[in-house]
Every structure is written in C-alpha cells, then in structure tokens.
C-alpha cells in the first residue's frame, strides 16, 4: 500500500510533470489566466490522464506485447487518448458549457498534451502494473493540476502588480514559471524516504 502512496506523492511533488519533467507546458501557459479555468482544465486533465494510463496499460500488456506489436505503441496510445478526450469534451459541454467555451481549443488539445502521452509511455518504461499505472497517472495529473492552479493564482495577483512595461504579460509569466520550477526542486529531498 505504501508503495502506491510513494508513487502518487513522487509524481505530484518530486517529479512534477510540469516543473521537473517539463511536460504539458502548452496548457500550463495557456489556461492559467484564471483560477476557475485552471481548476476546470486540471480536473479534465486528471480525468483523461488517469483513464488513459489505465487503458493504455491494458492495451499495451494485453494486446501489443503478446502479439509483438510494440512498434504500434505510440500510435495506439494516441488513438486511445484521442477517444477519451472526445468523451471528456462531450461530457464537459453538457455539464458546464461555460467551462467548455473558456477551455476552448485547449480541451481537444489535451490529446496532444505531451504529459498525457508521456505518462503512459513512462509507465511502460517503469514497468508499472495496472494499479501502479493508474496511480502514476493520477499522481502526475494532480501534480499538473497543482502546478496549474498555483500558477493561475499567482497570475491573477500579477494582474494587479506594478510590472515594468516590457515584462508585462507572457514575459513575467515565464519568469514566474521559472521561479516556481526552482521552488519545486526543493521537493527533491523527499526522495530519500522512498
């Protein structure tokens, strides 16, 4: 049981997808202007990523490996993820049209979110079993949401700040992201308890 906890905690804090693995930066910069949208995006990604980790494990170990079709791995993962994203989009459009409008292009772009493809591939590389895969997916997604929400909170405050003219907008956001990355490096020490 403890090992699952380590997988989740490690994925959330120590090896945060955004700040340590530098994955999924596109929505990280794009959907972090407002706290609400960031939360919505985080929730959507969490749903997709957890589901994608599980299904891709199933496809990989039950379908691809027994048939020696490992070379189809990336392709089949992408198809699975695309389908899950489409499903999520339909659900969101029904339940929260505003969030759907606000997430806009970023919602279908979860498909191409490198974190969503990267995490299943990492699962394969780490030889995780089904539960471990899903835990790792969940942890990574929560880490992504955490990074996104923290960053959105900071950006909302930044809007009221006296930023020098040339640094306004994306520039100061980049600097902030860098500082947050540095801060997350502090969690590296947690590793020794593993």
């Amino acid at each position, binding site marked *: 049981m403890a090992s699952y906890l380590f997988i989740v905690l490690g994925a959330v804090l120590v090896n945060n997808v955004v700040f340590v693995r530098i994955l999924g930066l596109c929505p990280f910069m794009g959907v972090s202007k407002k706290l609400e949208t960031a939360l919505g995006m985080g929730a959507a990604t969490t749903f997709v990523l957890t589901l994608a980790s599980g299904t891709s494990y199933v496809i990989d170990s039950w379908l691809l490996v027994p048939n020696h079709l490992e070379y189809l791995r990336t392709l089949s993962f992408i198809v699975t993820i695309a389908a899950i994203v489409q499903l999520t989009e339909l659900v969101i459009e029904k339940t929260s049209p505003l969030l759907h409008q606000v997430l806009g292009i970023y919602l279908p772009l979860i498909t191409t979110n490198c974190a969503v493809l990267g995490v299943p591939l990492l699962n394969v590389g780490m030889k995780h079993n089904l539960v471990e895969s899903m835990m790792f997916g969940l942890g990574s997604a929560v880490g992504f949401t955490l990074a996104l929400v923290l960053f959105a909170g900071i950006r*909302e*405050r930044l*809007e*009221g*700040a*006296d930023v020098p003219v040339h640094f306004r907008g994306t520039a100061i956001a980049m600097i902030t992201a860098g500082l947050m990355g540095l801060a997350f490096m502090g969690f590296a020490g947690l590793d020794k308890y593993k």
Partner: protein
Amino acid sequence: MNVRELFKFTGGVKPASHKAESNQAAIAVAPLSPVLTVPLRQNAGLASRPLVQAGDKVLKGQIIAGPGGSISVAIHAPTSGTVRGIETHPIPHPSGLLSPCVVIEADGEDRWIEHSAVDPYSLPVDELRMRLRDAGVVGLGGAAFPSFVKTQHSPTQDIETLILNGAECEPFITCDDLLMRTKPDEILDGAAILAHIAGAKRIVVGIEDNKPEAVSAMSTAAAKRSGLPIEVIAVPTRYPAGGEKQLIRVLTGIEIPFGKLGPDYGVQCFNVGTACATARALLSGEPMISRLVTVTGNVERPGNFEVRIGTPISDLLKLAEPKADTDRTLMGGPMMGFALPTLDAPLVKATNCILAGSKAMFPPPGPEMPCIRCGSCARACPMDLQPFEMFWFSRAKILGKAQEYHLFDCIECGCCTYVCPSRIPLVDYFRFAKSEIRAREKENEAADAARLRYEFRLEREEREKQEKAAKLAAKAAETKAKLAAAGDADEKKALIAAAMARTQEPKAEEKPSAE
C-alpha cells in the same frame, strides 16, 4: 456606575486626542447670519421636497421642505425671514458640487412659529415616529440617518437594548462631550423616549474614559431617574470605539456580521446629540434647526458653538478666529473628515466639527511608497478586514476581487491609513473602489430595466401585428359574406361607395389626442 465586563473590538489606533483645546470653553451661541442657506439634501437617503417659493415669509421652525421619500425627513426654517428662492449652492460635500438649497434672508426678529410640547407617553408610537420625521430629527453623529426609520419595529426581532453613543472617539471633536456635561437630563429624557418608541427594555450609555466629566454628569443624571434601567459605562479610549458596530461589541459582546444591523440582534444605537434633539422635538416642540458644532484646530479660540443649520461655514469659522497660516478646513475630524472645497458651503445637520488645519499642524504626507505587505493595516482594522489585499485590487481596479475581500464592510475609519508605514492613502482607494462598484451596479440595473422595456416593446409590436392581421381577416370575411348576400350589382356598388367614404373620413376629422 456598575462594574461590568466589557468586551473588546480588534484593531483600532490611539491617535493624540486633542480634545483639551476645545472642551474648556462653555458652549457659545453663534450669532445669526443675515442669509441662511438650507440644503435640501442633508440626511442620508432621499433629499427633501421644497414646500416654499421665492418671496414667502417664513417663521422660525416652519417646515420649508417635506420628506422626499420613505427615508427622508422634513427641513425647517432656522429663523424667521423671507425666502429668497431655491438656488443651487455649494454644500459641504467632498465634490464641491452645487445642490439645491432654500435661501432665507433673516429679518432679525427670529420669531418662532407656534409650537407646543406633547406628552410622548400618551401618544401611539407610530404617531411619535411621524412627529420625529416632521421635526427633522436625524442622527447627529455624522451620517445624518433619519431617526424615525431607526425606531421602526422589526417584525422578527424586538429591541432589547438602546445604546446611547457618547464615545466621540475621533480626535479634536468635543461637541458630544460638552452636550453630555451641560444637558445630561435632556439627553436621558430623549433616550427614554427613543427607548419607548423602539420598545427597548434598558438603556446603556457608552462614553470613552477620556471624558470623566461627561461620565460623572451622565451618571448623576441617570441615578436620579426612575423608569427604565440606565447604565453609564466608561469604555476604553481607542479609536474607533464610537463606531456603531464597535461600540455594540464593546458594550454587549455582540459581533454584528456583514449585511446585518444592530436591530437584527436586539440592539439599536443613537448618538447623544440625537437623543437630545428628540427630547427637544417632542418635549418642547422645537424641530431640529440648530446643532452643537466644535470649531477647533488651527484657531485662536477653539470651542463649541450652538449654530443654526444653514449658517455659512466661513461665518462660523470667523468666531473661532483662525490663525493666519490656515490653509484648509475640514468638516468632521482628522480621521474621517474631508477637506471642504469651499467655505461658502452652509452648515448642515451632519456637521459635527469644523477643523482648521495648517501645514504645521497636519504636515503633508510623504510620497506614497509601495506596499510592503507588513500587515500593520490588518492589525489596525477594527472590522477584521485585510486592507492590504483590498488595496492591491482596488489600486489595479480589479473591483470584483476587492469586493471578495469584503470591501463593503469597510467603515472608512482611516485606521489603516494612519498606521501605514508606506503612507498609502488606503481609504482613498477604498472610497474610489466603492463608488465605482456602486456606479456599475446602477448601470447594470439600468441595463436590466432597458432590456425589460425592449423585450416588452418587441412583444407589444408582435401582438399588435397579430391583432391587426386578425382584424383584417375578420373584416375581409365580413365583406365577403356581405357581398355574397347582396345579390345584384347595385347593392355591391353601394357597399363599395360606403367603404370609400369611410376611408376618406379620418383625413377630414381630427384624430382625438391620446393625452
């Protein structure tokens, strides 16, 4: 004076009180000015509606304006004389804008209109409330809220306690102090009447402990009285102990949440001056035509004056002989008052203090520095707010966020500005943000009303179209039937001729007007 447990409000500051300057001299009566300008907008709520015209002769105490709505009171002529007219004139307001005022040229006779006392305990309370309204009684603490509205019975909660606010926490101001020293009996008479109207079962008088003479005068007067239990309590001197919610908390321990008022918790608060004015209005029939005003600050002879409403502030200031280097005049105290844009403005019911200032007395604040988030303002805030957060968003004009930090709980007491090490005028930002939000809400309301009217118009146009179509169809059917019934050609011709004659008709005769 009983010993009882007092409660505390958080925050607050202790500025130098500067009360000694003006509380030594006895109350002086200000001489009558030749022209009195009585603004129609004096109380919180709606402005009053003028009832006199240019050239009318009025007597002292005669009603010159009636209540302009449910939260509005009457206004009376402060002296006898002739109405010069209803003119726009500067009023004491931070904007310096003009507002309609009744201008009265005094005839010097100062003749009272007939007035008589009533026995307040023999009349129904609603009648008493209307009398308070018609006597123009408003809160004299500074907000000038109509007192008769505050005594209204709430259907859900009875008033248990009537609190008499004699805290007078703001520096420099001493008019309530002097009033309590000289007229404690009148104040308690008024408080008893207010308690009777509101249905309160006890009266608690809260006075800051830096006014021992007032405390002893009020205690002595209270001890002599029978009837409702009256407690006179000295509260610790700490600004803003005289804030309504703060005083209620100190005296009763009740913390009133956002959006609620004292009466929701069985407490109602009146200023001592208001109580005195109530007694005057009912026990001697004299409406509110004058008030006690402190004139202090950078003047040779600071003191308190009994002044007629409508007296030009410049006339009043002269009585106290301002020093040569006076460069500004404030209405109210240094914490919550505002600089008067012009001294032409008349004195109104809300004017409790005229404070002359100079560069030496109030040195100009240093330049505003960036907020360092030290949290001093949050510690000083008596409403438990986070002024630095509200400032952050108010300054960036992100008003929604400022509101999320409970901007509208702010009582603008000025504690945060007072303690800010970066000399940020926080209250100015909050006032800006508040008035901006209010203006937007008003705009939204107007937009909603416009949408409704537009939708109604579309609906009406659609209905009219349908009605017209239905009418035409009915007519066509009728004509067809007639034509079918009329067998030969002659009758048909006659019908057509009649129809043509009908079409000519409207042109010939005038359409009746809709108005």
